């Protein structure tokens, strides 16, 4: 006996603020698991940076002869789906709301990976929020997409314990690989009807706000503990930044220190690069001057001694 593989339409765009090729990981694992991925819908073929690099999920699609559809109108998308009759849609970091009439075209709906334990942390910044709130645990949810943001019924969930030192990138990577595995094991069960999605409990829902570029500017009125969390949460984008004598510096790794330093000033004390803040100082371990490569605090102190308060 033989069995037809389910046909899949993939929706994904790259570079959610984490800088991780989130949708590339998922489309690759779908193809590797022999799903018949019929097309890859994106709304932007290149990243938003100046180099206009083709995004990873498009590269994966092209290597596997999956056609790419760039930024279709809702009408075109509807027509395309009508003509092709897909079993299931998979959407990862697409960044655009899919109208209900498009979702309804799929026999088994569109499924989506969201990097939080829904209904907690709906919205665009779930990973940043668990870092800033010092959560002991987070997780990933696979859900059936609904027109209301992140409110669809849950198909599968998995927890990820946190030790309080992970960066946004590390958490995102762990959650996405967990999420891809969950998604792959859920699709067959969803299709044969042995898995029924469960509704989210609305009264437990929490929403996170968008993070703005302004949020990345290091405020010395905050505590070292809070700033260290920001360094991990804002890594990649918007970056925890401070300005010294007209040079912008992005802190990429830091810890807290009890050594008092003058608030808002970058100082070298006992061989440690410290930024004075409320109740102590932020000990900078890795730093990236604007337009330069990331470097260790020691290398920075050698090359940028003129920015330090001695």
């Amino acid at each position: 006996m033989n069995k037809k593989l389910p046909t899949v339409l993939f929706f994904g765009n790259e570079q959610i603020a984490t800088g991780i090729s989130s949708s590339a990981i998922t489309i690759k694992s779908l193809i590797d698991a022999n799903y018949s991925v019929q097309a890859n819908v994106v709304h932007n073929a290149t990243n938003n940076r100046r180099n206009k690099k083709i995004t990873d999920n498009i590269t994966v699609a092209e290597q596997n002869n999956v056609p790419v559809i760039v930024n279709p109108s809702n009408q075109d998308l509807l027509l395309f789906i009508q003509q092709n009759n897909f079993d299931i849609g998979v959407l990862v970091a697409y960044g655009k709301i899919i109208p209900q009439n498009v979702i309804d075209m799929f026999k088994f709906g569109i499924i989506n990976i969201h990097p939080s334990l829904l209904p907690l942390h709906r919205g665009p910044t779930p990973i940043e929020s668990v870092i800033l709130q010092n959560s002991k645990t987070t997780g990933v949810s696979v859900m059936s997409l609904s027109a209301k943001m992140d409110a669809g019924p849950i198909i599968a969930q998995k927890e990820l314990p946190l030790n309080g030192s992970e960066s946004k990138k590390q958490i995102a990577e762990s959650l996405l690989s967990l999420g891809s595995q969950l998604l792959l094991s859920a699709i067959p069960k969803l299709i044969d009807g042995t898995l029924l999605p469960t509704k989210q409990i609305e009264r437990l829902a929490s929403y996170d706000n968008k993070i703005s570029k302004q949020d990345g500017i290091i405020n010395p009125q905050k505590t070292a503990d809070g700033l260290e969390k920001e360094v991990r949460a804002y890594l990649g984008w918007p970056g925890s930044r401070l300005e010294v004598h007209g040079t912008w510096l992005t802190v990429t790794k830091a810890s807290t220190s009890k050594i008092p330093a003058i608030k808002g000033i970058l100082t070298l004390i006992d061989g440690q690069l410290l930024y004075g803040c409320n109740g102590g100082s932020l000990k900078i371990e890795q730093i990236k001057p604007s337009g330069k490569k990331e470097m260790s605090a020691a290398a920075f102190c050698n090359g940028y001694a003129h920015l330090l308060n001695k």
Partner: protein
Amino acid sequence: MSKTPKDTIITLPNPHLRQRSQKVGVITQQTHNYINQMVAATLDWEASRNHELGIALAAIQIDLKLRIIIIREDFEDKNNKNFTILINPVITKYEGDIVEDYEGCLSIKDIYGKVPRYNKVRVKATDINGEETRLSADGFIARVLQHEVDHTNGKLFIDHIKDSPKAFYHLDNDGQLTPLNYEQEIANSTILW
């Protein structure tokens, strides 16, 4: 082109597919050879297909009139090439609801059917070491077992749905199923019946 393992698979209208197979008496080296041929044929067939998995085979499908069936260990993972071997399988009990789902057959090219089957079965068989084994299965694997045991009795999935005009589908080149025109393509086919 030289003959490859998949070319040993017989397809309709070969009349052997509608004949009952014989019980295997003793498991010999020859039996092992036959099983290896069945596995090779299934995997070689699968490699030639873009949108399908070969998940099970009965010996009659490579023209061996023996009650042997092989079933893939994992129906989702193409890279898992292990098969469970059942010799002289018999369904001892049908249970649960009757459910419809799509199935296809390596001996019936490009046609899929929505076939009603019991959701749960119990099977008695001999394993590769000659020991009696009993298993109970539900869901898709129960369907696969019914399909393969049918083969050992000369029955095909299309025989279950021959009077259902809406149960027949064609597998298109892009991996999608489209309904077939029952009157024109199925009812009076000289290949299928």
